[in-house]
């Protein structure tokens, strides 16, 4: 018995020692991988040495800098909602989420301490390098300036955000100087790309189309053409935007219905598909789900499944992106990007890398899949249908020479509305970037939002020249 007891004693004591070894490794590993994670609330507290790194765009334009301990923002209003500001009392945007990454802690992590034993060089604060491209950001900012709304551009294959503009904006330099109190300007502070939901209107017809294509319809499936559609048990009928028929007065195909944004067809389609199918399609497209985003995004929403199942009137209104449907421009851009990426949406990100001031990259963000929004075949048909919208439908104002643009307009009723929407994917000719534009109170998506998208797409096309 003494022999086995001895063995057990040795093994258990060794296991305790092993826990110590493991702890030593883990402290180093977690310190190097998670200490500056934006989700780690400790990144925003703690003791930091004076001085902070810069925020640079992908093309090297400095958008946040450090001068004598105060932050300065050379590009002013153009990057306000993305970069935010940092004062001794308050932080927002990237200045909050990457606060620790751009500073040197006075309490060192174990790996930093070990690494420094070799060379005792003075450490420099690190820079944050964005995926945003400055000429495109300026173009987006100029295109939306003077109006209330948002523009966001996303690279289809990676989810990298190339432009991110919200209007009205504010000058973060004045917040740092203390001449502007953020609490006095809630409207300008609001990030309309990720934190403002509006009814998406007819842009939501992309989701209803996907639901129909998913259960066997094709772009050539035909539907009765009607001036109005009254859902079973509904109080009021749904009419077309232009008060009339969508086609010849007899039948319209699905592709024609999307081209002219035919309300009666999509309202009827939603009711015939049923609340379950429409709700599932919306759920796949990330409605009702939290969207991971650097500076925080509010979730886009839709009525709860029970209401969609039991109330055909509500379902009909849902089919045209009204009722309880609410979406952020960020999500609508992701939906467009999924159409252009065989149905797969990539997780949006804006920090390309953390780098030393010498330019050496310390940590690079690798693209991640957010989820599959559409099946591959469905996405391909949606792309064809959306190309028809721009080539010969409500979205002709978004045509850009040299690019193939596939888009969808939206004109959404709502308080302060109607709101003008336009979402699209574009490329030469394969889809490369996705865009969402919203103009609050801008009325027609085709006449107001689509031309804004065209200006930004042109700027993108001209980037390489």
């Amino acid at each position, binding site marked *: 018995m003494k022999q086995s007891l001895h063995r057990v004693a040795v093994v258990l004591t060794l296991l305790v020692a092993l826990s110590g070894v493991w702890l030593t490794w883990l402290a180093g590993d977690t310190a190097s991988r998670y200490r500056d994670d934006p989700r780690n609330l400790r990144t925003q507290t*703690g003791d930091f040495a004076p001085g902070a790194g810069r925020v640079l765009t992908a093309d090297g334009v400095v958008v946040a800098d450090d001068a004598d301990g105060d932050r300065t923002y050379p590009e002013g209003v153009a990057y306000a909602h993305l970069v935010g500001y940092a004062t001794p009392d308050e932080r927002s945007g990237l200045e909050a989420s990457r606060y620790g990454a751009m500073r040197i802690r006075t309490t060192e992590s174990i790996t930093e301490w070990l690494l420094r034993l070799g060379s005792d060089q003075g450490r420099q604060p690190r820079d944050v390098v964005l995926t945003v491209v400055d000429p495109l950001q300026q173009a987006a900012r100029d295109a939306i300036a003077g109006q209330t709304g948002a523009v966001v551009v996303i690279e289809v294959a990676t989810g990298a955000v190339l432009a991110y503009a919200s209007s009205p904006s504010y000058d973060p330099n004045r917040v740092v100087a203390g001449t502007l109190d953020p609490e006095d300007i809630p409207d300008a502070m609001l990030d309309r790309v990720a934190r403002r939901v509006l009814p998406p209107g007819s842009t939501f017809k992309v989701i209803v189309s996907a639901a129909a294509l998913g259960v066997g319809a094709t772009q050539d499936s035909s539907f009765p053409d009607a001036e109005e559609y009254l859902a079973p048990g509904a109080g009021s009928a749904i009419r077309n935007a232009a008060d009339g028929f969508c086609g010849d007065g007899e039948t319209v195909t699905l592709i024609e219905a999307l081209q002219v944004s035919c309300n009666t067809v999509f309202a009827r389609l939603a009711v015939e598909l049923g609340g379950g199918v429409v709700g599932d399609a919306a759920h796949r497209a990330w409605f009702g789900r939290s969207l991971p985003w650097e500076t925080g995004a509010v979730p886009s929403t839709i009525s709860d499944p029970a209401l969609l199942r039991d109330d055909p009137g509500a379902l009909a209104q849902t089919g045209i992106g009204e009722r309880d449907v609410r979406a952020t421009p960020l999500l609508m851009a992701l939906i467009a990007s999924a159409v252009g990426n065989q149905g797969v949406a990539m997780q949006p990100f804006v920090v390309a890398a953390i780098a030393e001031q010498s330019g050496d990259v310390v940590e690079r963000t690798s693209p991640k899949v957010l989820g599959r929004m559409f099946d591959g075949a469905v996405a391909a048909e949606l792309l064809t249908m959306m190309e028809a919208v721009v080539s010969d439908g409500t979205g002709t104002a978004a045509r850009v020479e040299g690019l193939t643009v596939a888009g969808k307009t939206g004109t959404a009723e709502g308080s302060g509305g109607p709101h003008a929407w336009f979402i699209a994917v574009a490329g030469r000719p394969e889809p490369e970037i996705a865009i969402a534009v919203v103009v609050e109170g801008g009325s027609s998506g085709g006449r107001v939002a689509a031309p804004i998208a065209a200006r930004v797409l042109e700027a993108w096309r001209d980037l390489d020249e």
Partner: protein
Amino acid sequence: MTRRTEALLVALSAAIAAAGTALVTATAGGDVVLDPLAAAGAHLAAFGGMLVALRRWSPDASRLLLPLVSLITAIGAIEVFRIDPDLGRLQRWWLLLGAGIGIITLRVLHNRGVTVLRRYRYLFLLGAFGLLLLPLLPSSLPLGGATVNGSRLWVRLTMGDRTLSFQPGEGAKVLIVVFLASYLADRRRALAVMPRSIGPVHLPEPRQVLPVLLAFTAAFLVLIYQRDLGASMLLFMVFVVMLFVATERPTYLIAGAALIAGGGLAAVNSFSHVAVRVEAWLHPFADYAGGGYQVAQSVFALSEAGLVGAGLGSGSPWLIPAAATDYIFVAIVEETGLAGGLALLAAFGLLITVGFGIALRATDAFRSLLAAGLTIVLAVQTLLIVGGVLRMLPLTGITLPFVSYGGSSLLSNMILIALLARVSHEEPA
């Protein structure tokens, strides 16, 4: 070690408890004078009382035990108070109560020694079963079960408008060790005979193993039913290791490992809360806002540790759910760093070594198995929770002995130490 050194070390740990408590009052709140005094007072009263009881009733007991336990308890008391001052104050009362019960244990065993426990072994087994079944009583009774975090492992005693909760699994562990030590001391030769074999695997006579196996399966089922993964694992592993120690047959270890592997797989497939834990263990950031949240927060806390930590009171350990119970070790590491974490592990390592030393020097099989079993409980429990929070193993919720907040845990561990001390007193001179 002289008696004076022992007393000095206990006094030193009380001073540590007071100094640490004073240090964290700045951030945790609490009274900068009263709370440290109360911490020192409770510590001195509890361990001083134990010390006096040992002098009187077990004068030849090992002098290494009490200083180690006292130090470990002091570290726990500081961190629990730091995370939640109210829990910290409550823990002081539990400490006093635990020491009181430890002293009573020493007094009871004073006349006839630990061997008197053998006479009541089936009573202890029955008692352990009773305790394990208590949480299944309807919640409506004055003494009834309660479900916390999906596990029905608590008993709530309702007295008027006050309720007192405790985890009977903690008490059952000591009773079961006493029973097993006594039972195995008698039967170990019979259990070691392996007349049957399947291929290279030798098996014992079924009628020898059956009773204890049955008893154990029943206890185990009750625990599974209550979804108390931590206590199930602890009891099962202690059972298997004690069987191996008593019989010197590796067959029991192999069979035990196979059962744990099989049972673990079955649990992952049949209990959603187990599957969630395994997923959180492997990929905490996959479901950051959901099942992975707690583990992710502990990863962030560890990332802050560094060599000497954020400093007592300067970290943010409250961000981890269950920081004062399951995750107390991570909280300590965050604030005192690698240095503090390794020191605490070293203290546990020493305590375990002392315990096994007592078992090895014991005069007969029962005493040896009793000391071994109690030490195995301490060791396995420490390894399960430290390994769990450090992600060496899937997390099974259980307390870190003497450190986590928890009345039932502190009480049963003080009895455990009293028993170990008594066995060491009965060593040949």
